[in-house]
């Protein structure tokens, strides 16, 4: 799987995400500050809307995440638990 580029549209920052790496892990690796806390998808500190591209929560933990179906339908994702499947634009 290739690396993908994540773009934060408000701040103009970009970083790459490796396969099997969450968006938040990639941001940390790139030295990009993003609000987060629990790293397990339960505190919702990192909830962010995906403007374009494909990001999905790790299916092994999807049932344990604190995000509801409406938020998922509106393309919100918990960055600590989301894997990337294309280049992404995030509302951040």
């Amino acid at each position: 799987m290739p690396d993908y580029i994540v773009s934060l549209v408000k701040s103009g920052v970009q970083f790459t995400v490796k396969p099997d790496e969450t968006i938040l892990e990639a941001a940390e690796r790139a030295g990009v500050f993003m609000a987060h806390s629990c790293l397990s998808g339960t505190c919702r500190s990192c909830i962010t809307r995906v403007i374009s591209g494909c990001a999905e929560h790790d299916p092994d933990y999807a049932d344990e995440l604190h995000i509801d179906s409406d938020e998922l339908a509106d393309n919100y994702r918990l960055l600590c638990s989301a894997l990337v499947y294309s280049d992404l634009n995030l509302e951040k």
Partner: protein
Amino acid sequence: MYSLFSLDKVLIVKVLPASRSEHADVRVENASRYLIYCYTIERQLMRIMAAKFVDTSQWDFKRQLAQDMWETSRHADALRTRALELRFPRRDVDKKPNADRLTLMAEYAKSKDTEEFIGGVYGALLPELLRTYQNYLEQTDQLDDAPTVFILRHIAADKEGQIEHMRSLTEQISPNLFADTSDWQDYLRQLSASIGGISGLETFVPKPSDHPLAGRPAYAVGRSVQRDARWRPALFHLPHENKFDVEGRKAWQRIESLDKRVAMQVWSAISHFNEIWAAEVVAASIWDFDNQPWDFYLDLARWAWDETRHSTMGYRALQGWGWDVPELIPWGNALYNAMGPMPPIQRLALLYFYEDSLLRAGVKQIEIKILESAQDDGGVQDMDFDWADEAIHVSYGYTWLRHLLGDSNAGKTELTRLTDEARDPVARFVADHKDKPEAKLAPYFDRLYDVISAMLKEIPDDHLEFQWAPVVADDEVLKAL
């Protein structure tokens, strides 16, 4: 009445002898009932401790009650889990608590003040609970019932510690507390004996209905709090709370002008110390919300204890600098008292909004980075653990507000409405109290200025470059309130 042992045995039976000399006839059904009676007591004790924690102003008692409340929640949880393992029906655990034990605990809640509450719980209830656990441990089979033995040994050790610790505190703070509350303890002991004790297996005595302390009205948790009498009355603790306090803001800026890094340390410690209001809001919810799932209480007990720990972190830092904390540090009650008239659900919603907003704004992360850059190792450690706790609290808030309001769009809309409508009363409270002497922070910060100024003369400047952000995100979040 039941027994931990099976009954009605004939003396001579045609069976091979038991493989042990004693404890050969403890039955699961009886053991689970014994444990569930204890669970009912512990569960109610935890809820009452939470409420009395709110009502208590004396700082050392308050802190100890919070810790014991949380430990009690863990005891109740272990007992509940074990009783379910021992085939006690889940529906009965949750929906049919023993009425006699609820009545007994309702009387404990009716203590007229902190001293009486402590006298009753630490003088009568906990010693009886300890004896009840020790009796069980003596009677049960160490092999067959090993999981219970493990649990009860730990609970008994905790109870002993709680009793010892509180007795030690009372000797320092209120040496005659137990003697002065002996009538109340006596009444509660008689009441317990009238239901056969906590286990229901002891000798029954008549109910003390004509006892002079019987028949008090039902208890309700306080809608306003007082602070420890050693502190001057104060409504607020830092200038961002009260936009009208221009003099207080200027006085704080004087402290910043001395040394921004030190000002940040002091701000952080004062802020931590005053987190007690969050503990109080959660603890009051433990009492206010009746008939909720057990995990609701378990989570909120942890939340309230965590916030008390955070407050203690601040106190420890302030005391560690050698300061007379009651003399120098404002300990406000406006945040709890402003929410007092609101329905319990709205208070919980507002607290959740506040904590959720802080985390989403990355405030804790920012504060840790600032403290790291200032090489304040103690401050970093406190803030780091605080941050981990707050993430759990937001998760609790999310879970239980959805439970209370409904996991639906209507529930989300109601949560937004509750939060939005809570801002007005808080703002109004600040405006209504802005001219009161206890709303003025300048005298505190003037005194602090002198103390910090003197201390800084003893510390050579290290010319360390550090990041400075005067808690901007905190201000932003509070502006929204």
